[in-house]
């Protein structure tokens, strides 16, 4: 079995009386795609936000490459090589695609040989390339992302996460707003990332997509783990049964 990248032990997150996540365990290895499935409100988003430093866990541990970590901000998680695509995108609407991709890690260049300034050209180029990766060919590289369509914005969020060579990628319903060709692109991208040895958490309501790219599936129900299966050893039906607790 390949190296363990990330492990989560007994992780809980409560909102007041609501146990959105309750004593949850999971592991991801290098080169592995783990799908997280479950009905609406099962706790998937809460789970990954707790890993990525958005929420502080109520209790439990996150272990990264054998070391216990505790991210109090998403910055710390990013610095340790965890990139996340959030379900609600989390883009700065007033900034361009490039500025969003580089948000928090802006490239600099020197003007007149000495004055450090933002390297907008690099950002623009990277934006064009990253979007093209997903088959989006954008020309309005200086327009704020608020001017783009739902799927285009989804692509920006995906683009941002894949641009940085993170070891661990967390994707919360990345294809929900995408057109058919773009969905396929994203799936093939996931396979590529997997081949490069990254660990990926893939959240989706689309079982077909899950079965197409994942190695393992974890089904959540009301904040707990309802079951875990190797993809090769399970079926759509079994997964649905786990989801609804039947």
């Amino acid at each position, binding site marked *: *079995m390949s190296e363990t990248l990330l492990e989560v032990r007994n992780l809980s997150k*409560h*909102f*007041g*009386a*609501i*146990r959105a996540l309750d004593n949850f*365990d999971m*592991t991801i290895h290098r080169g592995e795609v783990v799908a997280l499935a479950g*009905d*609406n*409100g099962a706790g998937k988003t809460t789970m990954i*936000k707790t890993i990525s430093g*958005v*929420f*502080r866990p109520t209790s439990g541990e996150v272990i990264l490459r054998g070391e216990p970590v505790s991210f109090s901000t998403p910055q710390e998680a990013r610095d340790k090589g965890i990139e996340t695509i959030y379900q609600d995108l989390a883009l700065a609407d007033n900034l361009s695609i490039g500025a969003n991709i580089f948000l928090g890690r802006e490239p600099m260049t020197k003007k007149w040989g000495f004055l450090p300034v933002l390297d907008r050209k690099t950002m623009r180029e990277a934006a064009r390339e990253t979007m093209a990766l997903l088959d989006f060919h954008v020309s309005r590289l200086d327009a704020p992302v608020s001017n783009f369509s739902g799927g285009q914005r989804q692509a920006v969020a995906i683009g941002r996460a894949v641009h940085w060579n993170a070891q661990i990628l967390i994707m919360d319903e990345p294809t929900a707003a995408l057109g058919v060709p773009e969905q396929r692109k994203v799936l093939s991208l996931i396979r590529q990332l997997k081949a490069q040895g990254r660990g990926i958490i893939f959240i989706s309501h689309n079982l077909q997509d899950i079965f197409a790219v994942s*190695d*393992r599936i974890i089904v959540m*129900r*009301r*904040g*707990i*783990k*309802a*079951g*875990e*299966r*190797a993809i090769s050893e399970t079926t759509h039906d079994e997964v649905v049964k786990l989801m*609804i*607790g*039947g």
Partner: protein
Amino acid sequence: MSTPTEASPDSGHGKPQADHADQARTLVQHVADLRAWLFLAALVVGFEFWARVSFGGTFILNTFNLQSIAIFAVAPLLLATGQTFVIISGGIDLSLGFIMGLAAVVAAHTINAVTPGAGLLVGVLAGFLAGVAIACIPGMINGLLVSRLKVPPFIGTLGMFGVARGTAFLLAGGTTVPVSNNLFAMIGNGRIWGIPYIVIITAVFMLVMHYVLSQTKFGQHNYAIGANVQAARRAGIDVKGHLFRLYVLSAACAGLAGVLYSARFNAGAAQAGEPLLLDCVAAVVIGGASLFGGSGTILGTIAGALVIAVIQYGLVFVNVEPFWQFISVGVVIIISVLIDQAQRRFAGGRVDE
């Protein structure tokens, strides 16, 4: 690969509830909603303690102090009420102070003009009517600017700040306008069972405004617009009409404040409301509203306004040096919200994000 684990299936009901909360936090939340009141209570207790220790007196068990604070709070409260509505909608009304001044001046002139011919009562009624009605004019212009012409509220009402100010001073001839009508003076300074009339008028008015904000469509739409104006518009709310009415309402509150000012001081003054701007916005925010819109209550604002009135009164009462009063008021205002923050965290509503 790790061994697949199984959770004991949730027996009982076939279909899981999408929502797995219970109602337990409601109580905690209710207390949290009262946080401005709690702080007010703490403040009062603090002054009481201070008064007892420093000179053996009492701060709060003293009806004189209660009356004084209540009267003090009238004008800021009325302005803050209008401001509460506006702030919940995501706007701000900077012109309220001078609309109050304008109303005070017009009420004074009107009463002086009407009383000799028509008698005390008619004079007073005319004054009230004229004061509130004149206030509605700048309110309507604010409303038009914000709703139709999409001028940002800050700028539209800042412009009106100047226009109302100039108009009020022009009408007042740059000075105060003395009123002569004994009934009006009586309303401004009389009391019944120890309660000043203007406090009663204000209390009734606040009750009505509380009703409007919490129990009517107008109030509900106000919250929706403040949270997400796009969503409100798409839901079919007449946002333009609402905003128009909103700024008229807030101006009317200022108008009432102006009339009561004239009644109390027996004179209308154009600058009557000028110093209240920051205090009235602060009252709303201390009361729990966000300047980004979508939240706030009249009850909270009342607490916020009383917090400010109690600090300012109390510091004089316990005899703090003048320049130190500035500092103390500042510190207490900050603390009032710090406690709010701590409670929110404790109540565990929206978290860290």
